[in-house]
Protein backbone atom coordinates (compact mmCIF):
# COMPACT_ATOMS: atom_id res chain seq x y z
CA UNK A 1 0.00 0.00 0.00
CA UNK A 2 1.23 3.43 -0.86
CA UNK A 3 1.95 5.64 2.11
CA UNK A 4 2.28 9.30 1.32
CA UNK A 5 3.72 11.96 3.58
CA UNK A 6 3.11 15.60 2.69
CA UNK A 7 3.80 19.16 3.66
CA UNK A 8 1.75 22.14 2.53
CA UNK A 9 3.34 25.59 2.50
CA UNK A 10 2.09 29.07 1.76
CA UNK A 11 3.20 30.16 -1.68
CA UNK A 12 5.42 33.09 -0.69
CA UNK A 13 8.96 34.35 -1.10
CA UNK A 14 10.25 32.41 1.95
CA UNK A 15 8.63 29.14 1.03
CA UNK A 16 10.15 29.14 -2.44
CA UNK A 17 13.62 28.61 -1.00
CA UNK A 18 12.19 25.82 1.11
CA UNK A 19 10.61 24.20 -1.93
CA UNK A 20 13.94 24.36 -3.79
CA UNK A 21 15.73 22.76 -0.85
CA UNK A 22 13.11 20.02 -0.42
CA UNK A 23 13.16 19.12 -4.11
CA UNK A 24 16.96 18.91 -4.08
CA UNK A 25 17.04 16.57 -1.08
CA UNK A 26 13.99 14.53 -2.11
CA UNK A 27 14.15 13.75 -5.82
CA UNK A 28 11.18 11.38 -5.43
CA UNK A 29 8.88 14.15 -4.16
CA UNK A 30 5.93 15.37 -6.16
CA UNK A 31 5.02 19.05 -6.11
CA UNK A 32 1.54 20.49 -6.56
CA UNK A 33 0.87 24.18 -7.02
CA UNK A 34 -2.51 25.13 -5.64
CA UNK A 35 -4.04 28.58 -5.11
CA UNK A 36 -1.70 30.38 -2.68
CA UNK A 37 -0.35 27.02 -1.52
CA UNK A 38 2.38 24.62 -2.50
CA UNK A 39 1.86 21.02 -1.51
CA UNK A 40 4.72 18.55 -1.65
CA UNK A 41 4.09 14.88 -1.21
CA UNK A 42 6.35 11.85 -1.33
CA UNK A 43 6.30 8.15 -0.80
CA UNK A 44 6.94 7.37 2.90
CA UNK A 45 9.60 10.00 3.68
CA UNK A 46 10.39 13.71 3.20
CA UNK A 47 13.42 15.41 4.65
CA UNK A 48 14.23 19.11 5.10
CA UNK A 49 17.88 19.75 5.86
CA UNK A 50 19.22 22.86 7.52
CA UNK A 51 22.49 22.91 5.55
CA UNK A 52 20.73 22.64 2.16
CA UNK A 53 18.34 25.39 3.18
CA UNK A 54 21.16 27.64 4.41
CA UNK A 55 22.94 27.23 1.10
CA UNK A 56 19.75 28.21 -0.78
CA UNK A 57 18.80 31.16 1.39
CA UNK A 58 22.37 32.41 1.96
CA UNK A 59 22.20 32.88 5.71
CA UNK A 60 21.90 30.96 8.94
CA UNK A 61 18.53 29.31 9.19
CA UNK A 62 16.69 27.82 12.13
CA UNK A 63 14.62 24.74 11.27
CA UNK A 64 11.72 26.20 13.23
CA UNK A 65 11.52 29.25 10.95
CA UNK A 66 9.85 26.87 8.54
CA UNK A 67 6.76 26.71 10.75
CA UNK A 68 5.85 30.29 9.82
CA UNK A 69 5.03 29.15 6.31
CA UNK A 70 3.59 25.70 7.00
CA UNK A 71 -0.13 25.17 6.48
CA UNK A 72 -0.31 21.47 7.20
CA UNK A 73 1.72 18.29 7.41
CA UNK A 74 1.05 14.58 7.18
CA UNK A 75 3.41 12.03 8.68
CA UNK A 76 5.29 11.45 11.90
CA UNK A 77 7.75 14.20 12.71
CA UNK A 78 11.39 13.71 13.59
CA UNK A 79 12.91 17.13 14.23
CA UNK A 80 16.22 18.36 15.55
CA UNK A 81 18.56 21.32 14.97
CA UNK A 82 19.75 19.98 11.62
CA UNK A 83 16.69 18.45 10.01
CA UNK A 84 12.93 18.06 9.90
CA UNK A 85 11.79 14.64 8.71
CA UNK A 86 8.28 13.47 7.91
CA UNK A 87 7.81 9.72 7.62
CA UNK A 88 5.56 6.78 8.21
CA UNK A 89 7.32 4.05 10.13
CA UNK A 90 5.61 0.73 10.52
Amino acid sequence: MSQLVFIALQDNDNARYLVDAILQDNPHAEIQYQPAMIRIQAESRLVIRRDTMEEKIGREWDVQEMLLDVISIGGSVDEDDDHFILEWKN
Partner: protein
Amino acid sequence: MSSVEIKTKTIEPIRKTFSNIQRRFGDKPASRYQEASYDIAAVTNFHYRPLWDPQHTLNDPTRTVIRMADWHAVSDPRQFYYGTYVQNRAKMQEATEHSYSFCDKRGLLTRLPANVQENLLRYLVPLRHVEMGANMNNSGIAGDCVAGTVAQLHIYQAMDRLGISQYLSRIALMLDENTGVGLTRSKGYWLDDPLWQPLRRLVEDSWVVRDWFELTLVQNLILDGQLYPLMYQQGDQWLADQGANDASMLTEFMRDWFVESNRWIDAMVKTVMTESDANAAQLQAWVDHWVPRVREALAPLAAASVGGAAMNEVHRQFGTRLQKLGLTSPGVEV
Protein backbone atom coordinates in the same frame (compact mmCIF):
# COMPACT_ATOMS: atom_id res chain seq x y z
CA MET B 1 -32.94 26.05 2.68
CA SER B 2 -30.36 26.21 -0.02
CA SER B 3 -26.91 24.81 0.58
CA VAL B 4 -23.85 26.93 0.17
CA GLU B 5 -21.12 25.48 -1.92
CA ILE B 6 -17.64 26.96 -1.69
CA LYS B 7 -15.50 26.46 -4.73
CA THR B 8 -11.91 27.39 -5.35
CA LYS B 9 -10.84 28.66 -8.73
CA THR B 10 -7.21 28.82 -9.73
CA ILE B 11 -6.12 31.80 -11.75
CA GLU B 12 -2.75 31.22 -13.35
CA PRO B 13 -0.74 34.39 -13.64
CA ILE B 14 0.16 35.22 -17.23
CA ARG B 15 3.81 35.55 -16.24
CA LYS B 16 5.55 34.63 -13.02
CA THR B 17 8.32 37.21 -13.13
CA PHE B 18 9.86 39.90 -15.33
CA SER B 19 10.84 38.91 -18.85
CA ASN B 20 14.56 39.54 -18.25
CA ILE B 21 14.52 37.27 -15.19
CA GLN B 22 12.47 34.70 -17.11
CA ARG B 23 15.05 34.62 -19.92
CA ARG B 24 17.78 33.95 -17.38
CA PHE B 25 16.15 31.57 -14.92
CA GLY B 26 13.05 30.23 -16.71
CA ASP B 27 9.38 30.97 -16.20
CA LYS B 28 9.04 30.29 -12.49
CA PRO B 29 8.56 32.48 -9.44
CA ALA B 30 11.83 34.36 -8.92
CA SER B 31 13.40 35.42 -5.65
CA ARG B 32 13.39 39.08 -4.73
CA TYR B 33 17.18 39.00 -4.92
CA GLN B 34 17.07 37.85 -8.53
CA GLU B 35 14.47 40.43 -9.50
CA ALA B 36 16.38 43.25 -7.80
CA SER B 37 19.87 42.37 -9.05
CA TYR B 38 20.07 40.82 -12.50
CA ASP B 39 20.21 42.71 -15.80
CA ILE B 40 19.42 46.01 -14.14
CA ALA B 41 22.18 48.10 -15.75
CA ALA B 42 21.99 49.13 -19.39
CA VAL B 43 24.50 47.42 -21.67
CA THR B 44 23.75 48.88 -25.07
CA ASN B 45 22.71 52.00 -27.04
CA PHE B 46 24.90 54.49 -25.21
CA HIS B 47 24.67 57.69 -27.20
CA TYR B 48 27.49 59.64 -25.62
CA ARG B 49 30.74 58.78 -23.96
CA PRO B 50 31.02 60.10 -20.42
CA LEU B 51 32.92 63.41 -20.23
CA TRP B 52 34.82 62.11 -17.20
CA ASP B 53 36.20 59.12 -19.11
CA PRO B 54 35.83 59.51 -22.88
CA GLN B 55 38.00 56.44 -23.64
CA HIS B 56 35.18 54.22 -22.38
CA THR B 57 31.44 53.97 -22.84
CA LEU B 58 29.12 53.93 -19.84
CA ASN B 59 29.10 50.50 -18.14
CA ASP B 60 32.14 49.52 -20.19
CA PRO B 61 33.45 46.02 -19.38
CA THR B 62 36.98 47.04 -20.42
CA ARG B 63 37.54 49.14 -17.29
CA THR B 64 39.24 46.03 -15.93
CA VAL B 65 41.58 43.60 -17.67
CA ILE B 66 39.61 40.70 -16.18
CA ARG B 67 37.28 39.14 -18.73
CA MET B 68 34.01 37.43 -17.87
CA ALA B 69 31.46 36.14 -20.37
CA ASP B 70 28.81 37.42 -17.97
CA TRP B 71 29.66 39.38 -14.83
CA HIS B 72 26.35 38.33 -13.30
CA ALA B 73 28.09 35.02 -12.58
CA VAL B 74 29.47 36.92 -9.58
CA SER B 75 26.56 37.06 -7.17
CA ASP B 76 26.03 37.49 -3.45
CA PRO B 77 25.84 34.26 -1.43
CA ARG B 78 24.02 36.29 1.23
CA GLN B 79 21.49 37.38 -1.44
CA PHE B 80 21.43 40.95 -0.16
CA TYR B 81 19.30 43.40 -2.08
CA TYR B 82 18.37 46.74 -0.59
CA GLY B 83 15.57 45.41 1.62
CA THR B 84 17.40 42.44 3.13
CA TYR B 85 20.66 44.36 3.43
CA VAL B 86 19.05 47.18 5.38
CA GLN B 87 17.10 44.81 7.63
CA ASN B 88 20.20 42.77 8.39
CA ARG B 89 22.34 45.79 9.19
CA ALA B 90 19.60 47.40 11.28
CA LYS B 91 19.61 44.29 13.44
CA MET B 92 23.41 44.34 13.78
CA GLN B 93 23.35 48.03 14.55
CA GLU B 94 20.74 47.63 17.26
CA ALA B 95 22.98 45.15 19.08
CA THR B 96 26.02 47.40 18.64
CA GLU B 97 24.21 50.54 19.80
CA HIS B 98 23.28 48.66 22.94
CA SER B 99 26.95 47.89 23.63
CA TYR B 100 27.99 51.47 23.00
CA SER B 101 25.38 52.96 25.28
CA PHE B 102 26.19 50.43 28.01
CA CYS B 103 29.88 51.22 27.74
CA ASP B 104 29.16 54.94 27.80
CA LYS B 105 26.72 54.82 30.71
CA ARG B 106 29.08 52.77 32.88
CA GLY B 107 32.16 54.75 31.86
CA LEU B 108 33.94 51.54 30.94
CA LEU B 109 36.53 53.26 28.76
CA THR B 110 37.19 56.36 30.83
CA ARG B 111 38.07 54.30 33.91
CA LEU B 112 40.91 52.56 32.03
CA PRO B 113 44.46 53.63 32.92
CA ALA B 114 45.70 56.61 30.90
CA ASN B 115 48.29 54.59 28.95
CA VAL B 116 45.66 52.04 27.84
CA GLN B 117 43.34 54.86 26.76
CA GLU B 118 46.23 56.25 24.76
CA ASN B 119 46.79 52.82 23.18
CA LEU B 120 43.17 52.81 22.00
CA LEU B 121 43.71 56.22 20.41
CA ARG B 122 47.01 55.20 18.90
CA TYR B 123 46.37 51.64 17.67
CA LEU B 124 42.63 51.37 17.14
CA VAL B 125 40.97 54.68 16.34
CA PRO B 126 43.30 55.67 13.44
CA LEU B 127 41.81 52.70 11.57
CA ARG B 128 38.86 54.98 10.86
CA HIS B 129 40.98 56.60 8.15
CA VAL B 130 41.61 53.17 6.62
CA GLU B 131 37.85 52.63 6.66
CA MET B 132 37.22 55.92 4.86
CA GLY B 133 39.70 54.80 2.21
CA ALA B 134 37.83 51.51 1.91
CA ASN B 135 34.59 53.44 1.60
CA MET B 136 35.94 55.52 -1.30
CA ASN B 137 37.45 52.50 -3.02
CA ASN B 138 34.29 50.45 -2.85
CA SER B 139 32.10 53.35 -4.01
CA GLY B 140 34.46 53.84 -6.93
CA ILE B 141 34.28 50.15 -7.81
CA ALA B 142 30.48 50.24 -7.65
CA GLY B 143 30.64 53.05 -10.23
CA ASP B 144 33.17 51.44 -12.56
CA CYS B 145 32.09 47.80 -12.53
CA VAL B 146 29.47 46.19 -14.73
CA ALA B 147 26.46 44.06 -13.70
CA GLY B 148 24.00 44.92 -10.94
CA THR B 149 25.08 41.98 -8.81
CA VAL B 150 28.67 43.26 -8.65
CA ALA B 151 27.80 46.93 -8.14
CA GLN B 152 25.42 45.99 -5.36
CA LEU B 153 28.06 44.01 -3.46
CA HIS B 154 30.48 46.91 -3.56
CA ILE B 155 28.12 49.74 -2.67
CA TYR B 156 26.89 47.81 0.39
CA GLN B 157 30.52 47.16 1.28
CA ALA B 158 31.16 50.91 0.98
CA MET B 159 28.29 51.73 3.32
CA ASP B 160 29.47 49.12 5.82
CA ARG B 161 32.89 50.77 5.87
CA LEU B 162 31.39 54.18 6.48
CA GLY B 163 29.52 52.70 9.43
CA ILE B 164 32.65 51.07 10.83
CA SER B 165 34.61 54.32 10.61
CA GLN B 166 31.81 56.06 12.52
CA TYR B 167 31.93 53.43 15.25
CA LEU B 168 35.69 53.91 15.57
CA SER B 169 35.20 57.67 15.83
CA ARG B 170 32.70 57.15 18.62
CA ILE B 171 35.33 55.24 20.61
CA ALA B 172 37.49 58.38 20.53
CA LEU B 173 34.52 60.55 21.48
CA MET B 174 33.77 58.26 24.40
CA LEU B 175 37.36 58.60 25.59
CA ASP B 176 37.50 62.38 25.25
CA GLU B 177 33.93 62.87 26.51
CA ASN B 178 32.73 64.40 23.25
CA THR B 179 35.29 67.20 23.16
CA GLY B 180 36.91 65.95 19.93
CA VAL B 181 40.38 66.04 21.47
CA GLY B 182 40.72 62.27 21.11
CA LEU B 183 39.80 62.41 17.44
CA THR B 184 42.44 65.06 16.81
CA ARG B 185 45.09 63.10 18.72
CA SER B 186 44.36 59.93 16.84
CA LYS B 187 44.38 61.75 13.50
CA GLY B 188 47.80 63.07 14.51
CA TYR B 189 49.02 59.46 14.83
CA TRP B 190 47.62 58.65 11.39
CA LEU B 191 49.34 61.66 9.84
CA ASP B 192 52.67 61.78 11.69
CA ASP B 193 53.39 58.63 13.67
CA PRO B 194 56.06 56.62 11.78
CA LEU B 195 54.19 53.41 12.74
CA TRP B 196 51.23 54.37 10.60
CA GLN B 197 52.99 55.93 7.61
CA PRO B 198 53.55 52.72 5.57
CA LEU B 199 49.88 51.79 5.93
CA ARG B 200 48.76 55.34 5.16
CA ARG B 201 50.88 55.28 2.04
CA LEU B 202 49.37 51.96 0.97
CA VAL B 203 45.82 53.22 1.53
CA GLU B 204 46.52 56.41 -0.42
CA ASP B 205 48.18 54.43 -3.23
CA SER B 206 45.10 52.22 -3.48
CA TRP B 207 42.99 55.29 -4.29
CA VAL B 208 44.72 55.62 -7.66
CA VAL B 209 44.47 51.98 -8.77
CA ARG B 210 42.48 52.33 -11.98
CA ASP B 211 41.53 48.73 -12.70
CA TRP B 212 38.44 48.16 -10.55
CA PHE B 213 38.93 44.44 -10.17
CA GLU B 214 42.51 44.91 -9.08
CA LEU B 215 41.20 47.43 -6.58
CA THR B 216 38.55 45.12 -5.13
CA LEU B 217 41.20 42.41 -4.80
CA VAL B 218 43.64 44.77 -3.07
CA GLN B 219 41.10 46.36 -0.76
CA ASN B 220 38.63 43.63 0.07
CA LEU B 221 40.82 40.55 -0.05
CA ILE B 222 44.49 41.40 0.40
CA LEU B 223 44.38 44.41 2.72
CA ASP B 224 41.28 43.62 4.78
CA GLY B 225 42.12 39.92 4.79
CA GLN B 226 45.27 40.68 6.78
CA LEU B 227 44.41 43.92 8.54
CA TYR B 228 41.21 42.67 10.17
CA PRO B 229 42.70 39.51 11.71
CA LEU B 230 45.70 41.54 12.85
CA MET B 231 44.04 44.64 14.30
CA TYR B 232 40.60 43.35 15.32
CA GLN B 233 41.36 39.75 16.31
CA GLN B 234 44.99 39.66 17.48
CA GLY B 235 44.73 43.34 18.46
CA ASP B 236 41.66 42.60 20.54
CA GLN B 237 43.60 40.00 22.52
CA TRP B 238 46.48 42.44 22.95
CA LEU B 239 44.12 45.09 24.36
CA ALA B 240 42.45 42.52 26.60
CA ASP B 241 45.85 41.62 28.06
CA GLN B 242 46.12 45.25 29.17
CA GLY B 243 42.77 45.06 30.92
CA ALA B 244 40.78 46.70 28.12
CA ASN B 245 38.41 43.72 27.63
CA ASP B 246 35.52 46.14 27.64
CA ALA B 247 36.70 47.63 24.36
CA SER B 248 35.88 44.26 22.73
CA MET B 249 32.19 45.11 23.01
CA LEU B 250 32.83 48.09 20.75
CA THR B 251 34.66 46.15 18.02
CA GLU B 252 32.48 43.03 17.96
CA PHE B 253 30.60 44.47 14.98
CA MET B 254 33.85 44.56 12.98
CA ARG B 255 34.68 40.93 13.76
CA ASP B 256 31.18 39.69 12.90
CA TRP B 257 31.11 41.82 9.77
CA PHE B 258 34.50 40.57 8.63
CA VAL B 259 33.46 36.91 8.81
CA GLU B 260 30.24 37.69 6.96
CA SER B 261 31.78 39.78 4.19
CA ASN B 262 34.51 37.20 3.53
CA ARG B 263 31.83 34.92 2.14
CA TRP B 264 31.05 37.07 -0.87
CA ILE B 265 34.66 38.07 -1.44
CA ASP B 266 35.80 34.44 -1.56
CA ALA B 267 32.85 33.51 -3.78
CA MET B 268 33.66 36.37 -6.17
CA VAL B 269 37.36 35.50 -6.40
CA LYS B 270 36.59 31.81 -6.96
CA THR B 271 34.12 32.58 -9.74
CA VAL B 272 36.54 34.88 -11.54
CA MET B 273 39.45 32.43 -11.08
CA THR B 274 37.57 29.50 -12.61
CA GLU B 275 36.31 31.52 -15.60
CA SER B 276 39.64 31.31 -17.46
CA ASP B 277 43.35 30.62 -17.09
CA ALA B 278 44.08 34.20 -18.11
CA ASN B 279 41.99 35.50 -15.20
CA ALA B 280 43.66 33.11 -12.78
CA ALA B 281 47.12 34.21 -13.93
CA GLN B 282 46.20 37.89 -13.61
CA LEU B 283 44.85 37.44 -10.09
CA GLN B 284 48.01 35.58 -9.07
CA ALA B 285 50.13 38.39 -10.51
CA TRP B 286 48.20 40.95 -8.46
CA VAL B 287 48.51 38.80 -5.35
CA ASP B 288 52.28 38.50 -5.92
CA HIS B 289 52.54 42.27 -6.23
CA TRP B 290 50.26 43.39 -3.39
CA VAL B 291 50.57 40.78 -0.64
CA PRO B 292 54.20 41.70 0.21
CA ARG B 293 53.32 45.40 0.10
CA VAL B 294 50.48 44.93 2.57
CA ARG B 295 52.74 42.89 4.83
CA GLU B 296 55.37 45.61 4.85
CA ALA B 297 52.71 48.20 5.59
CA LEU B 298 51.36 46.26 8.57
CA ALA B 299 54.72 45.12 9.97
CA PRO B 300 55.63 48.23 12.05
CA LEU B 301 52.17 48.34 13.62
CA ALA B 302 52.32 44.65 14.46
CA ALA B 303 55.83 44.94 15.88
CA ALA B 304 54.80 47.82 18.16
CA SER B 305 51.60 46.16 19.36
CA VAL B 306 50.61 42.50 18.93
CA GLY B 307 54.13 41.28 18.16
CA GLY B 308 55.84 39.16 15.53
CA ALA B 309 54.28 35.83 16.50
CA ALA B 310 50.77 37.20 16.05
CA MET B 311 51.77 38.67 12.69
CA ASN B 312 53.13 35.30 11.56
CA GLU B 313 49.89 33.65 12.59
CA VAL B 314 47.95 36.16 10.49
CA HIS B 315 50.24 35.45 7.51
CA ARG B 316 49.76 31.73 7.89
CA GLN B 317 45.98 31.99 8.09
CA PHE B 318 45.83 34.32 5.12
CA GLY B 319 48.06 31.94 3.15
CA THR B 320 45.58 29.13 3.87
CA ARG B 321 42.68 31.30 2.75
CA LEU B 322 44.43 32.14 -0.53
CA GLN B 323 45.24 28.49 -1.08
CA LYS B 324 41.56 27.56 -0.73
CA LEU B 325 40.83 30.10 -3.45
CA GLY B 326 43.43 28.52 -5.75
CA LEU B 327 46.03 31.28 -5.23
CA THR B 328 49.43 31.02 -3.64
CA SER B 329 50.71 33.44 -1.09
CA PRO B 330 54.23 34.69 -1.81
CA GLY B 331 56.71 33.81 0.90
CA VAL B 332 54.42 31.67 3.05
CA GLU B 333 54.68 27.91 3.49
CA VAL B 334 51.20 26.62 4.18
